[in-house]
């Protein structure tokens, strides 16, 4: 179910500006990989190339290969829409559809993918909300708007919505940066459970968070403002935080810059 991501020689542009250059890495299935690095180093851009969301931005384009198991996401004839159905995404700010109820929010992706019986939908919605540790808080108000929930609950609703369609990979773009510490803890616990079923990639500015939730950590950096971001190194999280092989990583992690 969960799939391996294999990136080779990936470069992404905004118009003529090169945002990230020549990135190669492998992300193992059923693991959590964290992306850390200073602002503007292209970690979010790189994340968005993994489900072809980068090209949604006007002028956004990508060179290189992203293999999901053996299928190149940027191969000819690959529909970005079907890529995004395989690679789910959770955003920085919780973004449940304001015009939909909690139930409809979770069911939104399912309704795109085909027709389900009502009982099937109910089962999947319940399973997804349970999977996002939100079921007990919302089971009595599934028909209320999702925008009435707290920020942390909204973010877990977004996670429920993303996992309802059973993606192979789950991308998270700073999912806790708009949340308080308690909600953050709830999401981090959830990430630990979700990695049993999904391949998870998370961008975070919080190095303690990266250390807590991830198995592998990738450090991105850029030589100067206006220069493209690059992958400096990727290794086991423990090693990155104790004994990284590149000096810049150690400087960043110990707070000497960035």
């Amino acid at each position, binding site marked *: 179910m969960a799939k391996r991501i294999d990136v080779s020689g990936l470069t992404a542009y905004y118009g003529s500006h090169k945002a990230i250059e020549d990135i190669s890495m492998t992300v193992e299935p059923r693991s959590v990989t964290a992306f850390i690095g200073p602002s503007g180093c292209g970690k979010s851009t790189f994340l968005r190339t993994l489900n072809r*969301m980068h090209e949604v931005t006007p002028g956004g384009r990508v060179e290189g290969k992203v293999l999901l198991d053996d299928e190149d996401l940027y191969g000819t004839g690959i529909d970005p829409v079907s890529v*995004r159905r395989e690679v789910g995404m959770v*955003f920085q700010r919780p973004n449940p*559809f*304001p*015009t*939909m109820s909690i139930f409809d929010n979770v069911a939104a992706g399912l309704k795109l993918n085909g027709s389900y019986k009502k009982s099937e939908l109910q089962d999947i919605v319940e399973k997804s909300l349970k999977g996002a540790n939100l079921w007990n808080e919302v089971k009595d108000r599934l028909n209320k708007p999702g925008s009435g929930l707290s920020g942390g609950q909204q973010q877990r609703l977004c996670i429920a*919505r993303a996992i309802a369609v059973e993606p192979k990979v789950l991308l998270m773009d700073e999912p806790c940066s708009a949340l308080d510490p308690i909600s953050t803890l709830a999401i981090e616990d959830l990430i630990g459970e979700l990695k049993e079923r999904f391949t998870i990639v998370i961008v975070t500015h919080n190095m303690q968070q990266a250390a807590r939730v991830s198995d592998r950590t990738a450090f991105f950096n850029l030589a100067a403002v206006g220069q493209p971001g690059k992958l400096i190194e990727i290794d086991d999280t423990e090693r990155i935080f104790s004994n990284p092989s590149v000096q810049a990583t150690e400087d960043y992690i110990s707070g000497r810059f960035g």
Partner: protein
Amino acid sequence: MDISTKNTEAPPPIPQPTATEQKRAAHGATRPGDRIFLGLSRGSGILLLVIMAAIAVFLTYRATLAISKDEGNFLTTSDWNTGATPPVFGIAVLAFGTIISSIIAMVIAVPIAVAIALFLTHYAPRKLSGPIAYVIDLLAAVPSIVYGLWGAMILVPNLTGLFGWLDAYLGWTGIFSWDGGAPRAMFTVGILLAIMILPIITNVSREVFRQVPQMHQEAALALGATRWEVIRMAVLPFGRSGVISASMLGLGRALGETMAVATVLSPDFIIHGSVLNPGGGTFAQNIASKFSEATEFGRDALIASGLVLFVITLLVNGAARAIIARRKEYSGANA
């Protein structure tokens, strides 16, 4: 106990603000600029209410003068003979024509306007959307008499084909049967009104669609939505109340449009079951074509019909507000 009487060396008590000073502070209008602006804005608000009340009182008073002498039932009579003794007149034809022509205009204009707005905000490249939006703004600036002349000289002669086609395929419904007369009918009026209200509905809808937060659209995209599905999931629901408001602005114009209708329609005082057969009339058109030659009493009668249009417009606006308010908690406003 009072400290100052016990100890004469105590510092003087801090002066307390007087009641009027406190009141001023609460209004935030202690400085001249604030006071002037407060007066101006409050005055404008009151002036608006006074004008509305004055219109309502004027219409009601003059209308009562006429209706009290009307021998027919003012609401159900389909005749307009204020010169007869006793006078017989009613608004049945006018109400029917006004509502039918506006419905036709809305049915044609709203889908096209929404489609144009979506195209401009979500499909068209920026190089194209600018000029198109400009042309639509120009459309709104054309005076209504010009639309009327264009309608009478270009639209009417060119509609016989469409009318024949509608009669051949939909004539059996009765609504679209055609007796072959000149196409100066309610359907023609509806088409013309649709063109006239298209710019306002398009422009307001475009603004609403432009304000749909990027993050909601990305949420839909990330679930694997196609561009059309993004519009269906995130854009249209978010813009729903705005499109309703836009349509009501358009409907307001369609209900009250005068010159264009008067130029295109060949009016009579019969309720026609078919929208393709010439005849019928609208409130505004009837007032415009009869007012200059009417007697004092005839004018009162026309004003009475104007009062009914006023009430219909109020009801339509109220209904629109009710529709928007009903789903308020689902609107994007609290996201």
